[in-house]
Each structure stands twice: as C-alpha cells, then as structure tokens.
C-alpha cells in the first residue's frame, strides 16, 4: 500500500555513438530517421515527457498505449531499473529518484516471467525473502500462503522449465506478492499467454488485487485488459500522456482522436464534417445534411466565436443503425458492405463510405429477418446515427469539443 506521485517525469535515452552514425548514414540515403514519432533532441530520444500522475493507495492503475509509447519505460522508472532524466518520483512521500530498486519496496512481474531457471518453484518464490534473511519458518509459511492464493501448491518442488506458461506466470506473481510490497508493478504479464488463459488470468488478477492491499501499476498494450482491470487508465502515445481517467470516462469522453480510436473494439469510426454558424445557431454540415446542434454544444461553440470549423465526427460502431430514420438528429449516409462477419449474437459489417472503410456492429436481436437478409456483401444500404451518441473533435487540434 502506497501512494505514488510522478511529477513532471521525463526520460531521454542518450544517443549512442553507433546509432548517431547510423542515423547520419540513413539521412544520406534519404530514409526516414525513425518510425515512431518520438521527439529527438540533441541529448537523445525523448521516450517519456511531462508525465504527471498521482496514484492513490491501493489503486489499480493501467498504463496503456501502442508499442513505443513510453509505458514500459515509465514503469521501469518507477521500479528503478531506468534512471529518471528529469522530474521527481515519490513513493509514500519519499523522493525515490536515486534510491536503488531493492530499497524501494516494490515487486515486479515481467512479461517473460524471468524466473530463476536453476531454482525450484519454492526457491523462486522464496528468493526475495531469502535475500532479506527472513527466518526459515516464516519463509516456508509465507511461500505456502502465496502458493495457496495462486493455486500452485503442488508445483513447489518443480523447476520453471517443467511448467506451462500460465503456471509460470502464477509463480512470477507469487514471487512478487510474497514480499508484501508497497507497489506491485506488472509489465505486460499476460502477453505471452493464449487468449483463453489470458481471460482467466485477468480475472485472477482482479481477485488478487481485492485480496491483497497493494497498489498495482500495470502496463499493457491491450485496451481490453486496460478497461477490465484498471481503476484508472493512463493512455499514452509518443511519450505523452493522452488521458487519465476511469474506464468509463475514457470510453465515453475521450479527450482526443487518438484516445477515441484506441479505446473500444471495433474501433470508433471517424467522418469529416463541418460546423457552420447561421443566425446564432450552429449547424453540423455532413453529407449534404444540415442539423442544428444541441444547446450545450451551441453554448460552448459560441464562446469560441468561430463561424465555421472543420471537425471530425466520431461514432462507435454499435451506435450506427441500419435504414433511414425520421428523427432530425440522425445523420444519414450510404455505404457498400464489403465484408459481413457473423459473430453469433452480433454482426460486424465492414462498409465502404466514399472509399473509406467504416465498421458497423449490428445486434442480431434488434433487427428483423428482412433486414438481416440484406446484410450481404456488395449490397448498398442506408445507415444512420444519432448525433447525441457522436463525439466532436476539432480537425486541427484533434481535441474533443464537447464536455
């Protein structure tokens, strides 16, 4: 249990001699310097910057983002495995920047499990306690206890290589919790497991968090994991925090287009649209339709005193309906079905709207037999969505316009 405060954390990986040479060589060949959009300064590659976060006692925080966004680096800085270039890290009010990993009272679960191959499972779990020189009886008792929580009691005398992936993951978690650390750090612990085991372990981690009073910091690139596990989610991209919030918040009110597209499967659809001002009323212009905006949006836009504005309209696939509607808040468009995927209770349609691919999720129970028959490849259908469900983003800044 501990409060963790990250204040203006920044991480710069200095250029190594060889990489600088390589980039010079590359530039000669007119190749792009780096695939990711990480900022490159004279000092090096900026992996994380202006990271501010206060993690509460016993909270489950998930850092999520595409690969190379700096989430693992942030976790490793909390662990003390990476030096913090700038900023301050506090654990329970104590400045931790220069404290050795072993003195931070943390535990970490690695993606590759990182079990000690030469030790048995019992010795693996007991390892941190042996180093601490805890009395033998107590070690045994605590190892048994941890093994029981994770259901690996009968594996204790085996060696890591005799275990399956899921079992190894449990052992790695066991080794982490046996110390009763202030903070439990997890670096993509489920990525090496198959889909079924992953779902199962996800539930176990939730149970574990309820059972032991510890602050969890969890890194993943899987937004489903982030949504299901986290009390709060930190979404990162290119070293910057994009949004911090509860799963509900980031899903319902994404702060920008990146978050909107990253959270939720299938991905949110985006349409280019325009906002225009006529007689003190703002209208949405989309696909030759003109729809008056709600009062809330109207007021907000009135403050900005813009006349016209290019926007990006975001709508989740399950909020798109099939067929025309009389409602004046419904935006309509036509799309050609490219692929129809039957998922059992729902159907995923990949449709082409003006040469751009969009996704629609149709609940089979909500539509008639007749409509279902129409959902075939190459059919051109009318679709529509209610403006109240849609998200407005500024096309220029990519930031959310609504509250």
């Amino acid at each position, binding site marked *: 249990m501990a409060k963790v405060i990250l204040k203006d954390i920044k991480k710069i990986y200095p250029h*190594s*001699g060889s990489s600088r040479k390589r980039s010079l060589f590359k530039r000669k060949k007119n190749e792009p310097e780096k695939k990711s959009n990480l900022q490159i300064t004279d000092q090096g590659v900026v992996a994380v910057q202006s990271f501010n976060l206060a993690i509460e006692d016993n909270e489950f925080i998930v850092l999520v983002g595409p690969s190379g966004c700096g989430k693992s680096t942030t976790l490793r800085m909390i*662990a*003390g*495995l990476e030096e913090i270039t700038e900023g301050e890290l506090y654990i329970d009010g104590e400045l931790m920047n220069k404290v*050795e*990993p*072993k003195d931070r009272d*943390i*535990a*970490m679960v*690695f*993606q*590759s*499990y*990182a*079990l*000690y*191959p*030469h030790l048995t499972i019992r010795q693996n779990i007991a*390892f*941190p306690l042996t*180093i*601490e020189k805890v009395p033998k009886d107590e070690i045994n008792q605590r190892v048994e206890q941890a093994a029981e929580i994770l259901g690996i009691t009968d594996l204790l005398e085996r*060696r*890591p*290589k*005799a*275990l*399956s*992936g899921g079992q*190894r993951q449990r052992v790695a978690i066991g*080794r982490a919790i046996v*110390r009763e650390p202030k903070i439990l750090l997890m670096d993509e612990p489920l990525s*090496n497991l198959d889909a079924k085991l992953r779902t199962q372990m996800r539930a176990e981690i939730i149970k574990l968090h309820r059972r032991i009073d510890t602050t969890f910091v969890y890194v993943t690139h899987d937004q489903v994991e982030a949504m299901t596990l986290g009390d709060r989610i930190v979404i990162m991209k290119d070293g910057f925090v994009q949004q911090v919030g509860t799963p509900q918040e980031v899903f319902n009110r994404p702060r920008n287009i990146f978050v909107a597209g990253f959270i939720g499967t299938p991905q949110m659809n985006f349409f280019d649209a325009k906002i225009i001002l006529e007689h003190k009323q703002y209208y949405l212009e989309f696909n030759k339709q003109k729809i008056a905006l709600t009062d809330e949006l109207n007021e907000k836009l009135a403050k900005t005193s813009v006349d016209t504005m290019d926007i990006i309209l975001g709508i989740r696939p399950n909020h798109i309906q099939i067929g025309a509607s009389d409602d004046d808040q419904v935006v309509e468009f036509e799309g050609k079905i490219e692929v129809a995927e039957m998922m059992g209770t729902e159907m995923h349609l990949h449709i082409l709207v003006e040469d751009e691919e969009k996704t629609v999720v149709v609940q089979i129970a909500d539509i008639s037999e007749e409509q279902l028959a129409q959902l075939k490849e190459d059919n051109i259908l009318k679709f529509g969505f209610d403006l109240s469900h849609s998200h407005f983003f500024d096309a220029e800044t990519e930031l959310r316009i609504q509250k």
Partner: protein
Amino acid sequence: MKTDKDKKPLQTKKILGRIGTIVFAIICALYMYPVVMVILNSLKVESAIQTSRAFEFPTAESFSGLENYGKAINSQGFLKSFGYSLFITASSVFLILLCCSMFAWYITRRKGIFSKIMYLLCAFSMVVPFQMVMFTLSQTADRLNIFGLRFNTPWTICFIYLGFGAGLAVFLFSGFIRSIPIEIEEAALIDGCNPLQVFFKVVFPILRPTMISVGILETMWVWNDYLLPTLVLDIKKYRTIPMLIQYFRGSYGKVEMGPMMASIVLTILPVILIYLLGQKHIIKGVMSGSVKG
C-alpha cells in the same frame, strides 16, 4: 507419389553418411594410435621399446607389468611434480573461472566504449601466439616484484595463466551471458539483490554449463603446458609434470623409455577423467524454460 527423383538424394545422403563414417574412423584411429602406442609400451621392458618390437603387442617375454609405473613414481620426484601441476592447474582454473565470468558479465551488461575495447582486446589476445610474447613475459615474471610478491613460483604462476586464459574464457562467457535474458537479472535487482548478489546468486549458477566447458578447456591447457612453466619457473626447484617427463632423458642421450611412457600415461589420466566426469554435467538447455514458453 514418390518418384525416382525423390529417392535419389536420400540414397546419396546415405552413401555420403557412410563415407563420412569411414573417413572419421580413419582420423580417429590416427589420433588414437600414439596414445595406444604409449600405453602399450609403458607395459613393456626397456629393451623391447628401444627396438623394432616397439610396435608389437607385449608378449610374455617383453611384458613388464607395472614395473615402469613403479619406476616412474619413485624416480625424479614424480609425486612432488604431480602436486605442483595439480596446484597450478587448480589455482589457475579457479582464478580464470571466477575472474573471467565476472569480467565477462560486466563488459556484456555495461555497454560502452570501455567494454567494447576490453572485449576486442580479449578476442585479440587469442590470436597472439605465445611464442611472440614468451621472452618478454619470462623476463617480466622474473623481475616483477609487487610488495614481495614474485611471479616465478608455482604459487603465483596462476596469475600469468589468468592473463593467458582470459581471452578464450571471456570470449566464451560473454557469448553465453548475452543469451541470458536481462529480465532475470532485473528481477533479482528488484527482489533485493545488490550487484554482487545478482552475480553470485543468479548469474553464476546459470553459467554452470559454460563454467564446466571453459573449466575443461583451461584444465587441459594448463595441465599439459610445458613452455610457460619451463620459462617462468626455476627449473632446479620446481618441476611440473610436462617438465619432469623431459628429465627422463638422461644427460648422456640415454632415454629411459619405459618410465617415461608410464609417466605420460599417468599424466594424461587425470585430464581424461575430468573430461569424462565433466561431460556428464554439460547440460544443454538449463536455460530453456526460464523465459517464455
């Protein structure tokens, strides 16, 4: 359906395999021949060795039993030499294993220009032939005196062996250390180890298979080495076994072949034993299973 074309390569493979077996059997026989000769002659009387009967199996009349072995052990201070050899080998191999594994771990994990230069120097030292440095080395060893510590005794020659053995050992160790996932060491750091504990509690045990193979290589080299101890040690006072064997050559060109053969057999025995015992322990795949599935 299998056609003749499909079958052909398989047959050629078989034939090639057989030719390979024959070739390697011949090479093996060529290598074993001197060893067998030494063993056979160590069981014969002196007169039988010196004549053309040296290439025959011992007969009732030329068989001398273990007489030569007795002579070898009793004469010339064989046991003393054996002791020196044993001590030099054990201390050198111990030093090489300990220092080189630590050093290799450091230069592999600490990236930087220093590590790179050190690694290249180690690799380079394997290329330099001993004969190139032997004169300056023996002079240095004779004259060097660090606070009364001299390097021309059997008790300190291990430091010279450490220098010569380091190249190969560091090269092999760093190759293996590179294959150890760094997460294991990071996990140990988080679990409360200081760097020294990380090395001795985690890296050292994982390195065991490499330790054994490096150990065997270095043992064979140090045990059989003739030139370095001859140059560095005081020949009148200290004789290692390879030096001693040379002394079966008498001062007037007379060579006591029987005892010489016997002491050669006694000399190669420990190395062969160590190899056979060690081989059992070279377990590949100790690492498999520590990371991923």
